């Protein structure tokens, strides 16, 4: 057994054992204490109610919490955390539960702290180009509120209609506009967060330029609910681009498409969007969205840009030329905004659409430097073939961020095991190409076994010291970062 298979075996969650009555008694008492803080109607303890919170979007992981709480204010969040620290009870912060790394699975039981009641857009300030929202506002709600004020919230994760801004910050979500605009981190100006000890801190503020002190805003961004619970977020907005445009280029293979990506960047064009899908993804997306995509091609590149109309038109036609020169079978531009939106929406649902192909869909996330994309695609193909697995790949080509996705039959334990092994090899391949084990989905419980490979022991030790400084009792999201 290789090191990776041993780790892979550790990924499966044991069936929970919560039959002992002493534990139930303690849970009942805890629930009463929580009810006194947030109101009885905002606490759930029935086994069925807990079971509904046993999962997020990560397959093969599930474990119900002991209590679910829905606080309605920052003060209530603080009260819950103080209580949990006093009693040494684990707390799992949860936004929409759309993460793909088991970040919100309550592996150690305890309290599921659901933040969706904190769902108000507090402020849009066109003068300062910023928005202030409560943590449970969805990404789409923030984007719409900004759009109504003629502004753009640039981060655009595929899950935007469901995911919360708090969850985006906690995972430092990327998205479809990442190439030109970067990821969530680049837009967070300030946070209000509650430490596990119940202290409320405000980091950063309303300024683009502010270097006073350690950058705690950045430290909390991407901390995956292990350092503090974020209750309010201030984000930078941009003026809404005057125009947007989108196009599709078809290629014989994903490797050809990857080479075209390199050619586009080499040509000095940095479009807002440069996404790719392989043949299996195209078929799956087409089955859902019925957009008339070419399903005979081996891969497609979806490209898009925004800005001044003449700049957009110029960039799109340049990409069209470059792709054609790079051997594209066909390049077409979306004739109107509706068509462009449909194409982007279809790309956003690549993952769920893939589950049409089979019953268990395991998606992973690895990033390599852009110029090594074609090489990485080749290695994924080789690994899939060697293990006899169906691995479809799509992702943010412009960022070198790939989402190899394996579709297997969950009853075929051999295949599930082989899939884990294959993903271990894929991560190793990414590291060997100077890449990383996750570009945007985070570490959570799913990737924790691989984290030391990326960071090394010294950084791991530092991570733990930081974790201890924020969370001395170790109650916040145990089994994840900093554990």
């Amino acid at each position, binding site marked *: 057994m290789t090191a990776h298979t041993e780790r892979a075996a550790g990924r499966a969650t*044991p*069936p929970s054992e919560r039959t002992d009555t002493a534990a139930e008694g*303690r849970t009942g008492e805890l629930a009463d204490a929580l009810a006194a803080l947030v109101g009885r109607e905002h606490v759930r303890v029935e086994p069925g109610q807990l079971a509904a919170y046993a999962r997020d979007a990560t397959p093969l992981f599930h474990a119900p919490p002991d209590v679910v709480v829905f606080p309605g204010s920052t003060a209530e969040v603080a009260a819950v955390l103080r209580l949990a620290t006093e009693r040494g009870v684990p707390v799992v912060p949860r936004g*929409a539960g759309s993460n793909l790394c088991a970040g919100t699975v309550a592996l*150690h039981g305890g309290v599921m702290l659901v933040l*969706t009641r904190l769902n108000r857009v507090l402020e849009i300030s066109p003068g300062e180009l910023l928005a202030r929202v409560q943590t449970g506002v969805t990404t789409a709600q923030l984007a719409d509120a900004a759009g109504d004020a003629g502004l753009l919230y640039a981060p655009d994760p595929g899950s935007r209609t*469901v995911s919360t801004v708090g969850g985006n910050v906690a995972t430092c979500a990327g998205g479809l506009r990442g190439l030109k605009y970067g990821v969530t981190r680049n837009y967070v100006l300030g946070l209000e967060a509650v430490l596990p000890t119940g202290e409320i801190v405000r980091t950063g503020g309303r300024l683009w330029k502010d270097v006073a002190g350690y950058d705690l805003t950045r430290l909390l961004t991407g901390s995956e609910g292990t350092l503090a619970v974020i209750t309010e977020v201030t984000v930078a907005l941009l003026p809404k681009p005057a125009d947007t445009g989108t196009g599709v280029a078809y290629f014989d293979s994903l490797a050809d498409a990857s080479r075209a990506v390199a050619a586009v960047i080499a040509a000095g064009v940095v479009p807002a969007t440069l996404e790719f899908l392989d043949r299996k993804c195209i078929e799956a997306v087409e089955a859902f969205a019925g957009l008339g995509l070419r399903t005979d091609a081996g891969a497609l590149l979806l490209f898009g840009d925004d800005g001044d109309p003449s700049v957009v038109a110029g960039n799109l036609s340049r990409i069209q030329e470059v792709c054609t020169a790079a051997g594209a079978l066909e390049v077409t531009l979306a004739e109107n905004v509706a068509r462009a939106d449909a194409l982007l929406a279809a790309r956003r649902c690549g993952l769920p659409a893939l*589950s049409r192909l089979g*019953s268990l869909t395991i998606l992973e996330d690895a990033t390599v430097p852009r110029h090594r994309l074609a090489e990485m695609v080749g290695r994924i193909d080789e690994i899939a073939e060697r293990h006899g697995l169906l691995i479809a790949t799509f992702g943010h080509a412009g960022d070198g961020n790939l989402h190899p996705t394996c579709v297997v039959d969950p009853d075929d*334990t051999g295949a599930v095991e082989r899939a884990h092994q294959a993903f271990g090899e894929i991560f190793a391949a990414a590291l060997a190409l100077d890449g990383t084990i996750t570009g945007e989905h985070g570490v959570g419980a799913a990737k924790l076994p691989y984290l030391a490979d990326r960071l090394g022991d010294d950084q791991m030790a530092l991570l733990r010291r930081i974790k201890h400084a924020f969370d001395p009792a170790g109650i916040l999201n145990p089994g994840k970062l900093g554990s």
Partner: protein
Amino acid sequence: MTTEPPQPGPPAEGPGTGRGLFDKQQLDRCISCGFCLPACPTYSLTGDEASSPRGRITLMRALETGELPADDPTLAEESSYCLGCRACETVCPAGVEYGQLLEQWRDHQWSGPKRPWIVRLLTALVARPFLLRLQGLVRRHARPSGGGPADGPSLMLGCVERGLYPAVSRAALRLRPELNVPPGQGCCGALHAHNGDSATGKALAEELGRRLPGTLVTTAGGCAAHLAHHLGPDRVREFGDHLHREGHVPAGRVTVDGRPARVGLQDSCHLRNGLGVTRPPRELIAAVAEYVEVPGAGDCCGAAGTYAMLRPADSRAVLDPKLAALAEADLDFVVAVNPGCLRQLRQGLRRTGARARAVHLAELLALAEEDRT
């Protein structure tokens, strides 16, 4: 409190763990992405995962694997709280057929003595042919007749509609006199399928398919979706969809005080979400009146079959925002394409003292047809 670190164990859904209550492929297909959450009316009321499509599928999984006992109260509550509107299906990229899963869930949840008595009463009544015939004697629905060629399209009378709204089938026949109205029509079984007896639901659909030759034309969106599932989409057509395909547009106009009537639509969930029929009723209305798109027309009205009877308070909570939107739209008529929705809207509009009248699509079009003369 469990605080031990997790130990390696078998995958949560290992082989042999299923109880066979659900179509496992369908259950497995859901990847818990949550794309369906924003579409779900009950989730938007509670914000609780358990009352979302994703959460309900998670509950079904727990029932299937035995992690939750069959008598778990949340299972009972959520299988009944769900409207069955299938709005979640239309936005699910993975293609999970939630409506099928719900039927399987209710088969289990509402079996034997656990069935709500209203459901028992209703399904028993509509499965009695002589009672259905009796309804025809009391309330004057369209008389059985052979309007057209024997293998031509037949008008289905609908077991509930026959009694509650007999004028609908009369209107339908006035518009399309060539429709056959075969005698001895039973019930299509949608009521059974949605209420925990999908086996009878299927049997009744097949039986009706044998009794009514040719294309089955129905004025009820719910029946259309159920029949289409069992008899194939080619054999079944909702009335508006039928007119639309035949290219039949009523010649006259519906006017109020000399101006074209302002008319909105309430989609039937099953017609919209199950069969994807949204344009035909809108275009037909626009042909005879001033069509007004009411915000949220595609959202469930809360009638949801027996739901309004089983859970009146929840049903109202779903209806209320719709009534507000309808009031805002200042309509003369709001059109429904399903008897349950018609009843729900009539009651709601009456309760709020609204000006608009709820009518069935066939009735509105028949009004226009009369105007021709």
